[in-house]
């Protein structure tokens, strides 16, 4: 993996706030919603977005771990255990080993299920084509962690996918221009012209 600090374009000794700011700026710039019309640009933006998210997560984790020992005690070792499991699960999902990813997810106890758990569960469901549940998990992940762009864009992607299929159906009921409308408009135009001394339609 490339250097996460380089991806975000910040020096290694940057403060947490600087990193957050740099991340937000990049996330806004490369958000796939900005490229809704251009398919290739969007997929490139999605890749870039993923890279940015990963870099940000990596830095956050790195800093949390280096400073967390001692102060946070047992709870931080617990989350880092889950952290590693989540990384394994992600690699399973990416390589299409959905069954293994799912059983690992199910192995995590209810109390430990955070936003990322719901996001990954949503990914598992989506790759099985279980789109109803996938959406429920994604929106749960979004409501638990509203600032996470990865979760948000997963949910948006599903909605956009459905939207593109529906477009043909909804536009059939666009406002139409009937013969009556044309005649009325012409008569009105004629009246207006006559008011000004001209004439549009000779006979009336």
């Amino acid at each position, binding site marked *: 993996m490339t250097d996460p600090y380089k991806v975000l374009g910040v020096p290694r000794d940057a403060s947490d706030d600087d990193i957050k700011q740099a991340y937000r700026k990049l996330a806004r710039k490369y958000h796939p919603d900005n490229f809704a019309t251009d398919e290739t640009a969007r997929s490139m933006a999605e890749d870039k977005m993923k890279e940015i998210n990963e870099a940000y997560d990596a830095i956050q984790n790195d800093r949390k771990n280096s400073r967390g020992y001692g102060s946070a005690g047992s709870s931080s070792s617990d989350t880092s255990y889950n952290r590693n499991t989540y990384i394994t699960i992600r690699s399973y999902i990416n390589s299409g080993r959905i069954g293994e990813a799912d059983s690992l997810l199910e192995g995590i106890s209810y109390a430990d299920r955070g936003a990322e758990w719901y996001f990954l569960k949503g990914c598992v*469901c989506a790759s099985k084509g279980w*789109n109803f549940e996938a959406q429920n998990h994604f929106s749960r992940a979004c409501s638990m962690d509203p600032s996470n762009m990865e979760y948000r864009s997963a949910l948006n992607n599903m909605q956009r*996918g*459905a939207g593109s*299929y529906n477009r043909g159906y909804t536009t059939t009921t666009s406002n139409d221009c009937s013969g009556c409308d044309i005649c009325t408009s012409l008569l009105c135009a004629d009246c207006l012209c006559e008011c000004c001394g001209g004439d549009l339609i000779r006979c009336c």
Partner: protein
Amino acid sequence: MFGYIKPMTEELKVKEQELYKSIYCGLCSAMGEHICTSNRLTLSYDIVFLALVRCCVTGERIHIEKKRCMAHPIKPRNRAYIPETLRYCARVSALLTYYNVKDDIEDGGKLKSKLLLPSAKRYMKKADMPDLGEIIKNRLDTLCSLEKEGGSLDRNADCFGSLLGEVFAYGLENPELYNFGYHIGKWIYMIDAADDFEKDKKAGEYNPLSDYEALPCEALNIACTLELEAAYAAFNRTEAKNQVLKAIIENILTLGMPSVSHKITGENK
């Protein structure tokens, strides 16, 4: 089945509508010929759709004649003869009717289904497709036990989808056709669950969505649309051998079915 799969008639060309009607008529008479006259009453739009798709993929020749029948004794109507396809669809329809009735009786035993059982059994014997019957029975049993466990909507829909996949692809060895049927089946299951939501809630009967207070319209609508999209993609990967049928099927997939799912998942908003 359920009768959700209809074309949007106002968007059909005249020749497409004519063909659709004549296939409907042909299927009705095929059901009378191969199974039993009374079986014709169970004809549904869904089976007509099965006939359209199978005929479009196999490219079987369609022969049309003007005929009178009991339902239309005065004015003769166009009737399509597509022997292989319609024979298969008539038999499938008989099997599905039988298992539907049997399912009803196991669920609670309405009087109507009890009365229908003997004739439904006769239809099934006439259909004479023990292998497909076994597959359908298998899937329905699985679905039944999933529903008893209170399985999730997607899990149940997956099971029902595999049933329809088998029905669409039976004897044709076309994996894309299986995929197509699978997604159509999932769509039907979800739409049916959403459609029965209020009714089941009042009656206190099982519904895969009964965990929800109100119908989750938006998520359902998106999930249904994604199934249609997948089905449409699978259909485009099969080789359509009849362009008029292809146009009708496209109308059903992109207009008729979306309008049904919009109506059902949108009305309670």
